[in-house]
């Protein structure tokens, strides 16, 4: 059954006694999409993912995976899922092959297809050379890859990854990141992280969660388009005032530095350089800035401003 919406969660809520960990989260994952779930520690990312994968029963709301309701047909729904929890669920006493073979059997890969499935998963995750080694003897990065291989061995349409790069070194992070991007060719991915560049680098859509609520939800393309560009300039002999066509505001930052904001259609850089040369201002720095995900994240998740911003958004 072809279905364009692979995960549809409506009004997902989870309470632990009086504490509300997740409150009314709506989430949709379409085919071929990488959705980034972003939020500070303890925001409810992992709880949300546990509910999406059927490891935690929601206190309210529904989850549909590939059109199958997770509550009423858990087995059928889970067939379409691959899940890498925060801690890779590996058995240290087994070899990579033994472990992946079990993961494949568990997810219903037929015996005759299993060798090929293993081969493909190992190839995607760069595990071919360690096939016969004990998982317990592998480094953290490799164990993470084994966990990832486990999630993709049965080629599920949906892969859910909970902080897949935690505890890895920068090179491993880069490798895992490119692996996720490669996976997105065939699978849809939900990825959680509190590392912003990671989300920015791979995701096509981002959902920021704070204190169990969705506070921001936009595609990366929209985010880029909506960004108001601003420019940072610094002169050695700064003029008292700057007036340029198309510029909406100029604020002096001291020490000869200015922040210039202007209309989206207008790029003031050329004009700035020409004037600087003509008037001998001594331009030493000129830089374009867009409002990054980081700024949005910080403004949405820090302190008491959250509520105001959500109203404004």
């Amino acid at each position, binding site marked *: 059954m072809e279905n364009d919406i692979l995960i549809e969660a409506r009004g997902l809520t989870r309470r632990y006694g009086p504490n509300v960990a997740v409150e009314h989260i709506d989430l949709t994952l379409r085919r071929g999409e990488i959705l980034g779930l972003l939020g500070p520690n303890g925001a409810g990312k992992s709880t949300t993912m546990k509910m999406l*994968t*059927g490891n935690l029963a929601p206190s309210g709301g529904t989850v549909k995976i590939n059109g199958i309701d997770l509550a009423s047909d858990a087995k059928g729904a*889970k067939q379409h*899922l691959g899940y890498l*929890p925060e*801690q890779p669920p590996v*058995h*240290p006493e*087994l070899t990579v092959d033994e472990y992946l073979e*079990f993961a494949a059997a568990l997810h219903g890969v037929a015996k005759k297809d299993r060798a090929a499935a293993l081969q493909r998963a190992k190839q995607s995750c760069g595990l071919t050379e360690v096939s016969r080694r004990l998982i317990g003897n592998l480094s953290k990065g490799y164990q993470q890859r084994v966990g990832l291989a486990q999630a993709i061995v049965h080629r599920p349409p949906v892969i859910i990854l909970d902080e897949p790069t935690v505890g890895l070194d920068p090179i491993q992070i880069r490798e895992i990141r490119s692996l996720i991007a490669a996976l997105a060719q065939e699978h849809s991915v939900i990825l959680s992280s509190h590392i912003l560049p990671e989300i920015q680098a791979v995701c096509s859509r981002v959902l920021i969660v704070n204190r169990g609520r969705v506070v921001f939800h936009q595609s990366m393309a929209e985010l880029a388009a909506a960004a108001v560009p601003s420019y940072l300039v610094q002169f050695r002999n700064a003029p008292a005032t700057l007036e340029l066509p198309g510029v909406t505001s100029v604020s002096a930052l001291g020490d000869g530095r200015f922040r210039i904001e202007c209309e989206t259609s207008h790029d003031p850089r050329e004009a700035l350089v020409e004037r600087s040369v003509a008037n001998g201002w001594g331009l030493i720095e000129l830089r374009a800035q867009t409002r990054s995900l980081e700024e949005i994240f910080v403004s949405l998740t820090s302190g008491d401003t959250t509520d105001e911003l959500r109203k404004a958004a």
Partner: protein
Amino acid sequence: MSPVFAIARHEARRIFVSPLAWTVLAVLQFILGMVFFLTLAQLAAEPGMLNEQAGVADYIGGSLYGFSSILLLLIIPLLTMRLFAEDRKSGSLTLLTSAPATLTEIVLGKYLGLCVFFLAVLVLMAAMPLSLLAGTNLDLGRIAAGLLGVFLLMLAFGAAGLFMSTLTREPVIAAVGGFGLLLVVWLLEAMAYGGGMFSELFRQLSLIGHFEKLRRGVFDTADLAYYTLFIVLFLWLSVQRLDLERN
């Protein structure tokens, strides 16, 4: 292949790659071998003990399987403690709970894997008396009843131990809890001696009473039913407990 068998195969493999299983088998075999040898030596010294009513199988089988029940009580909680507690601690239980398998299938799979280990124990226990076939006539029915008793006892211990393992994330606590639980059910027999209105009830509930009959070579469907109910009860409780964890 149904997930039950996939999990069972995997669990059996994990038991047999761990040094714990082999240590348990070695210790068990060493102690039982000693008991077997001592009984045999005693019998050789006093052949007059044998008569029309009691043959070699009664002596050897009786003492061997009687002694093994105590050993199993001590050893099986050590094997069952890992089933869920360790997986929960290491986070690898998530692999099962997010896979397309129901909780019942997960519990059954783990339990069946454990049964593979029990079969290995059973083979060891059968081999000792059967080695006597070379030199004497054995009452094979008697040995078979004893082995069936041991096997049922192991299955019952295993189910109770598995349940204790679902309750906690610390394997050691699961082992201690399993041991305590088994000992209490075992000792219900002692409470039956006190008399009183519940004495018959306690006698029926005790693990040891039902084993004793089989050990003496009496096969009663009531005992079989007792063990079946005992096993089903604890496996069902395990499923309930795991379901509770999701909520």
